[in-house]
């Protein structure tokens, strides 16, 4: 007996050592990310007052610089020209020079490369100065939206890289006015790309703006760079508005499942509903399984789901006020499809209603809507549609706000430059000492950015989280000011 007890005790010891290791393999939760993960820009700038003509510099083409017409036509011409002259070697070279510090870019070679794309750059310049941009994508008609969208996005990114290189070369050459004009082109391009009715297009446009604002950082570091406070203030807020894209995304389910758009409420024949459900099953299989599921399998699955979910759908319609006799007289498919459409709309509206609000008002609601979808969709949906099609709305909204955040940070830097220029190079100890121009608010929080000074260096932080945590929303600028 003593030996048995000893063996059991040893086994218990072994299990108690192994169990924590086993559980840690699959329930790893990283600790708070280290502070290094905060997106940080480091600049060295000089004090500079606003220009005498406050709006001398603008970051989007002005009214008189723009012409009527559709920018998309010119972008397509530029894309065709670029494809005719572009090579993998050039693409790599452009990428390398974009990564390189300004001082190390071989300017003669960079100019020579840019000269080889002069026709393309001229066409891009024209495109950015058109009043409108209508890509005329047949998204409502096509069965292959990505086939339409992806080539446009890929090509516009190539154009953006080329334009970005042009800005960098102009900055390195000290050509401030040309660099500002090319920044106008870049920012206009980003807005034009985002005109396409897809969230993905908006994200690409925002990424293009991100590249442009990085070059704006490089420009602001030049000792003779003019103050861009009012140029940045004149930008639309947010610089790229995703409302148009979200309007399209809201209707995405009806583009993917046209049968759901007008589910008849009057009695129809069984054959009619059988065909209806078959169409739904085919489309659902396409989007649920990337087209790898057989149509016949999908029909069986959807029919089975419909049968199992019918009582829930019936009870829901009765709870909405229809009589039991009326509902039970309808075919199963009709009841299920009506319920599916209503349930999807409920989940969708619960998420999308928060989008027009400022981020600090919408954050909690968006988070709750996403949690509600995760927790309830498996319970309430009969055929999973909402869980397949609805986007991560918080991530999308955050992308839009992050773009506006960049402008707010740059405006704050420029405001401090103005203050320093008017106070003999002295930097403010607190941000509320800057009274020369209005201070922007942090689009994440609705409050001014956090500010602290250490000698000639100021640190600006947007979206400061409790306990020093960091996530993708936090942004930091560490700005060192030269003496007057």
């Amino acid at each position, binding site marked *: 007996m003593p030996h048995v*007890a000893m063996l*059991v005790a040893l086994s218990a010891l072994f*299990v*108690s050592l192994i*169990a924590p290791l*086993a*559980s840690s393999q*699959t*329930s*790893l*939760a990283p600790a708070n990310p280290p502070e290094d*993960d905060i*997106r*940080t*820009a*480091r*600049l060295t700038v000089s004090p500079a007052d606003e220009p005498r003509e406050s709006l001398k510099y603008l970051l989007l083409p002005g009214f008189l610089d723009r012409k009527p017409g559709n920018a998309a036509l010119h972008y397509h011409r530029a894309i065709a020209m670029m494809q005719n002259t*572009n*090579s*993998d*070697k*050039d693409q*790599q*070279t452009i990428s*390398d020079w*974009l*990564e*390189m510090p300004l001082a190390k870019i*071989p*300017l003669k070679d960079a100019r020579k490369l840019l*000269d*080889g794309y*002069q*026709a393309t750059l001229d066409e891009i310049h024209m495109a950015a100065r058109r009043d409108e941009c209508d890509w005329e994508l047949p998204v409502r008609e096509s069965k292959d939206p*990505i086939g339409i969208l992806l*080539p446009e*996005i*890929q090509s516009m*990114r190539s154009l953006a890289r080329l334009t*970005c290189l042009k800005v960098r070369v102009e900055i*390195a050459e000290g050509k401030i006015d040309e660099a500002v004009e090319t920044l106008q082109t870049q920012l206009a391009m980003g807005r034009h790309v985002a005109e396409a009715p897809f*969230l*993905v297009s908006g*994200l690409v446009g925002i*990424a293009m703006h*991100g590249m442009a604002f*990085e070059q704006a950082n490089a420009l602001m*570091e030049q000792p003779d760079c003019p103050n861009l406070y009012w140029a940045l203030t004149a930008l639309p807020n947010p610089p790229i508005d995703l409302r148009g894209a979200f309007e399209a995304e809201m209707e*995405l389910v009806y583009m*993917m499942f046209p049968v759901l758009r007008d589910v008849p409420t009057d009695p129809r024949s069984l054959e009619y509903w059988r065909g209806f459900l078959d169409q739904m099953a085919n489309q659902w299989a*396409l*989007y649920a399984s*990337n*087209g790898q599921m057989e149509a016949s399998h999908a029909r069986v699955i959807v029919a089975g789901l419909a049968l199992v979910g019918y009582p829930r759908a019936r009870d829901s319609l009765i709870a909405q006020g229809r009589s039991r006799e009326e509902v039970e007289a309808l075919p199963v498919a009709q009841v299920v499809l009506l319920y599916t459409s209503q349930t999807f709309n409920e989940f969708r509206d619960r998420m999308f209603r928060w989008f027009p609000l400022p981020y600090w008002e919408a954050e909690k609601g968006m988070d709750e809507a996403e949690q509600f979808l995760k927790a309830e969709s498996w319970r309430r949906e009969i055929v999973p549609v909402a869980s*397949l*099609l609805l*986007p*991560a709305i918080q991530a999308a909204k955050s992308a839009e706000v992050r773009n506006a955040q960049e402008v707010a940070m740059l405006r704050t830097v420029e405001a401090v430059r103005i203050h320093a220029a008017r106070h003999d190079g002295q930097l403010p100890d607190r941000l509320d000492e800057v009274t020369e121009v209005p201070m922007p608010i942090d689009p994440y929080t609705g409050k001014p950015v956090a500010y602290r000074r250490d000698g000639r260096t100021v640190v600006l932080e947007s979206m400061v989280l409790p306990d020093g945590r960091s*996530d*993708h929303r936090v942004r930091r600028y560490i700005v060192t000011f030269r003496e007057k």
Partner: protein
Amino acid sequence: MSQEEDLPSELKAFEAELAALVPRADRLDAGRVMYLAGKASAARRSRAWPAAFAGMSVVAATLAVMLAVRPEPQTIDRIVYLPTSVTTAAPATEDAAPVAPAVPEREAPRRTAPPGWSIESAVLASVAPTPQWLTAAEVRRLPYPRFRDYVLRCGVDALPAAPASDSPAPSASPRRSGDWQRFLMEKSL
């Protein structure tokens, strides 16, 4: 009989009582006596092992319950930004031409962001620390909702780059529309 002294009366009574006593033969067991003696002489037994057994059994049972009822592991979306360097420009100098770069693969899945772009976001799952970017062909096959969610998760950097022209670059690229006209006329001759 020897001559006995007469005992006092009280001792005679006591003598009579003692004589009435009969020894019990079953009260003494020699073997048992020896056993008890041996047992009493043995060392006191340790309770350490039973206590350890009980303790570890409780620990193991508790961990087993925790393992059974633990929640599903969560995928933590972690945004990673690779800084692109921004430095003060020195006066333009003539530098040596850059080393000819290697031609990038078009279809191979990328595990790092294309240069020139800051990474907007990358998913760092607890069991898959490397972002799983898709090839151009894989992206092309995605239905739009999945394509959109892929871009939201992985950022625009995960999109495949535009293919460069398959034809070699002309030795003299036209720059102006007049140049294009001459270029096209030359090509048509």
